Structures are given as structure tokens and as C-alpha cells.
């Protein structure tokens, strides 16, 4: 009986799995700061927590913007990415970042000075939060739009982005707000955010496992990516950092550890480390389907 067993062939002139190499660490860093910053701004705006909003804005502007500029082959032409908003998620994301930067800054400024009339103030806040929400999910859409890579090509990717962004926002708010008036005035907020963090971790675990499940049964490339993450070269990183540290340790600390600044920093550090590892590994483990997968007819 004839059989075919594909391997990772990299640049060899053989049929097999090939890694995507176009998106790497700089793109993962940009995605990390995008979802962490936007998530922080989103949660902070819910509580009118200015420090969190400013930190979120800075993370998006400097971290995400810087990461993207480092990634681009021709950064000086980056403005051109505004031109295809109708079809490209990269374009939509750039528009969202620009709108968020302008309206988010205006909102924070207005929060301190009361410069704008109330109707305009609400409008500015609404536009800022809409752009912020777009940043929280568009990276997932940009990835799921790539049908070439089974690991990403799932409707769960935007959901994973949103879950992670909210989770990042909650843990960062817990850290930044610990000594701020936010928690002194409303001590019940800490408990609320800690419960929210645990719930989001649980939801995140289910989302990521569903994502892997879908990829495994989606195509041969997806199956190989999942094998790399769970049993292959990236096993230790994925299981230890993404699942163990990012979800397990942070959830346990949020649920059971006594209240304290060090605990919050440790829990947030664990969660953010796991999230960054997730972003990097999603790029590193992404493989294209072997070209022969198109025609079982030819494999006889």
C-alpha cells in the first residue's frame, strides 16, 4: 500500500510543510501591545480611570506603532495602508489606530479639563471606545482572513483576540489602579475585576483549545501546527507559558492569593508573559498545507 507522510521541509525542493516566515517577533510585539493597550484603555474608560487610559494609549501608539514600523519593509510608505479599507484588515486596523489615537487623547484631555460640551464629550468618548474595540479584534480578523494557514483560519481568532485584550485590560487595571483613587474609592472594584479575570481566563482556555481543535481537524497544515504546539518543538513553550503560566498560574493567583500589590504584579506578569508567548507561537507554529494536498488523485 502506498502512503505519504509529510515532513517540515523548509526551503527544500520537496513536498511538505513550510513555515510562514513573513510575520515574526516584531509583528507579535505589535499585536501584543495593540491588544494589551486597547484592552487597558477599554477597561479603564469603563471606570474613568485616567492613568489606565493614558497607559493604554501610549502602549498602542508607541508599542503597537513601533512594532509595526519595525516590521514593515518600507516603513516610510506606511501611510499608503490607508488606501484599501474596503478589503484589507491591515488598512482597517491602521484607520482604527489613528482614530483611537486622536479621539482617545482628546477624551483623556477632556476628562481632565472639561473642555468639551457634554454632547461632544460623549461623542468623543464613543468614537474612542469604538476604535479601541476595533483594535481589540481586528488583529484576529487579519489572521483569520488568511485561509492559507489553517491554524489561523478560524472564526475563533477574533474571539481569542477580544478575550485576551479584555483579560490584559483587567489585569493591567488591577496593577495600575492598586494605589490609585480608583480602588480606594470603590474597594469592591478589586473583587469584581479579580472575578472578571478568572472568568476571562476560563473563557480564554476554552477559546484557545477550540481554536486548536478546529485547526487539527481543518487540514494537514493545521494538524501539523497543533502537533508542533502540543507535542513537537514548541510543546514546552506552549504548555508551560501559554497554558501553565498565562492561564493556570494567573487564574490561581487571581482566585486564591491574598490581596496585595506584589500579588497583582505577579499575576499580571504571568498572564502577560503567557499572552506574549501565545502571540509569538501562533506565528512560529503556522505552516502552509503541502502543495500536494490539493490532489489525492495524484497520490495513488
Amino acid at each position: 500500500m502506498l502512503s505519504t507522510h509529510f515532513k517540515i521541509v523548509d526551503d527544500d525542493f520537496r513536498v511538505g510543510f513550510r513555515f510562514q516566515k513573513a510575520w515574526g517577533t516584531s509583528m507579535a510585539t505589535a499585536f501584543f501591545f495593540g491588544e494589551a493597550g486597547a484592552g487597558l484603555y477599554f477597561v479603564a474608560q469603563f471606570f474613568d480611570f485616567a492613568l489606565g487610559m493614558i497607559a493604554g494609549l501610549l502602549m498602542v501608539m508607541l508599542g503597537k506603532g513601533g512594532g509595526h514600523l519595525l516590521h514593515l519593509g518600507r516603513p516610510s510608505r506606511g501611510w499608503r495602508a490607508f488606501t484599501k479599507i474596503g478589503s484589507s484588515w491591515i488598512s482597517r486596523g491602521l484607520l482604527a489606530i489613528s482614530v483611537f489615537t486622536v479621539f482617545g487623547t482628546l477624551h483623556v484631555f477632556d476628562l481632565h479639563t472639561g473642555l468639551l460640551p457634554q454632547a461632544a464629550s460623549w461623542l468623543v468618548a464613543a468614537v474612542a471606545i469604538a476604535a479601541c474595540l476595533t483594535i481589540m479584534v481586528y488583529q484576529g480578523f487579519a489572521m483569520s482572513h488568511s485561509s492559507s494557514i489553517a491554524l489561523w483560519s478560524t472564526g475563533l481568532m477574533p474571539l481569542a483576540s477580544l478575550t485576551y485584550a479584555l483579560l490584559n485590560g483587567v489585569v493591567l487595571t488591577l496593577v495600575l489602579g492598586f494605589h490609585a483613587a480608583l480602588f480606594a474609592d470603590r474597594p469592591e472594584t478589586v473583587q469584581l475585576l479579580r472575578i472578571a479575570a478568572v472568568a476571562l481566563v476560563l473563557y480564554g482556555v476554552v477559546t484557545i483549545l477550540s481554536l486548536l481543535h478546529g485547526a487539527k481537524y481543518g487540514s494537514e497544515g493545521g494538524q501539523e501546527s497543533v502537533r508542533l504546539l502540543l507535542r513537537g518543538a514548541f510543546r514546552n513553550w506552549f504548555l508551560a507559558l501559554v497554558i501553565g503560566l498565562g492561564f493556570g498560574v494567573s487564574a490561581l493567583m487571581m482566585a486564591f492569593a491574598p490581596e496585595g500589590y506584589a500579588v497583582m504584579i505577579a499575576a499580571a506578569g504571568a498572564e502577560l508573559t503567557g499572552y506574549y508567548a501565545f502571540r509569538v507561537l501562533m506565528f512560529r507554529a503556522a505552516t502552509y498545507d503541502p502543495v500536494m494536498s490539493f490532489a489525492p488523485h495524484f497520490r495513488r
Partner: protein
Amino acid sequence: MAKWGMVFDLRRCIGCNACTVACKQENSLPYGVFFTKTLSEEVGAYPNTTRTYIPTICNHCEDAPCQRVCPTGATYTRADGIVLVDGDKCIGCGSCVVACPYDQRTLLEPEMLTRGLFRNGELTPFEQQGYKRFTAGTATKCTFCHERVDAGLQPACVATCPTEARIFGDLDDPDSKVRRLIQEHRGRQPMPEKNTNPKVFYID
């Protein structure tokens, strides 16, 4: 207007990769960059094994995902169906590279155009002349040798193939050889499940 396409006859391909070399020469491709490759695959279990050869190339898809995701419009489709990249518009974001299910795009790293074929930082006259067409930091891919096609010639890989395993022609012309081969041998498009409608067909 013609709609250019290509047929790969797998019965004829001998895996010599003359097409690969001709393409690199015609397009002055830098070290490590290929617009076409003929892949080999070992099939079966000992002692019943065989080796097959699969030529690969940009499929110039009718519904090209690379064009859809491009944030600048740098990737475009000509009226004759050839998908090209405008190096002056491309920002090098790589979204087209990850969107191509066939892994047929390359991001031109700046050092690819400066290191030279002999890896000593010096460009040969051939490279100095040929690299003018490339823009560092942008995406590049097979062009179906559009300059040759516009001049009434066949793409370099097709003209070179010693076994006529590559056939190029007008998919819209019912009397063309490519159209006839596709119909007679039930030509298959690569990865039809991706819904990209490639203009490259495989027959065996």
C-alpha cells in the same frame, strides 16, 4: 483580451528544474528567491516506492487572496489575468505572503539585494543590471514573464522545459492547447478548497 494560464503535465515532468534555473536567469532572482520550483515527493512504502515531481508557481488566481488583503493596492490583476506587484506601492507588511495558500511570495530582505550571489557583498555585473527591477523590503513573485508575454513570447520556464511539461496559453480561447488539455485530461486546480480559482492546472 486573452486570459493567460498554464498547464503542468505531471506525466512529462522529469524534475530537472531547468524551469527553475531559467526563471532565475530571466528575472535575475537574488540568492534564495525562487518564482518557480519543481518539488519532489517520495510516495509509497518500501519496496513499492516511486518519486513524483510537482512543478509549483504563482497561480495568478482569479480571486487572489494576496490582492484582497493588500492594504495599499500594490498587488493588482491585469486585464489579461496576470497578477503583479507594484514595487513602488508595496510597504512590505507581508500580509500577502501569509495570505497566499501556495506559499509563492517572497519578502525581499535588503541583504538579499546586497550580499551577492557569491555571498561576499559584491554584486556581479549581471546582478547590478538585474536587481534594478526589485525594491528592497517589498514582496515579489512570479510575473508569468509578462514582458516576454507582451512581446509575444512564452514565459522563460515554458520555453526552457525540455519535455514540454509546462504549457502556456489563453484559457479563454476554446481552441488553445491549454484549454484542450484541461478539458481532455480533466485538469485540476491546486487547492480548490481555498476558493481562489487558480489559472494554473495540473493534468496527469
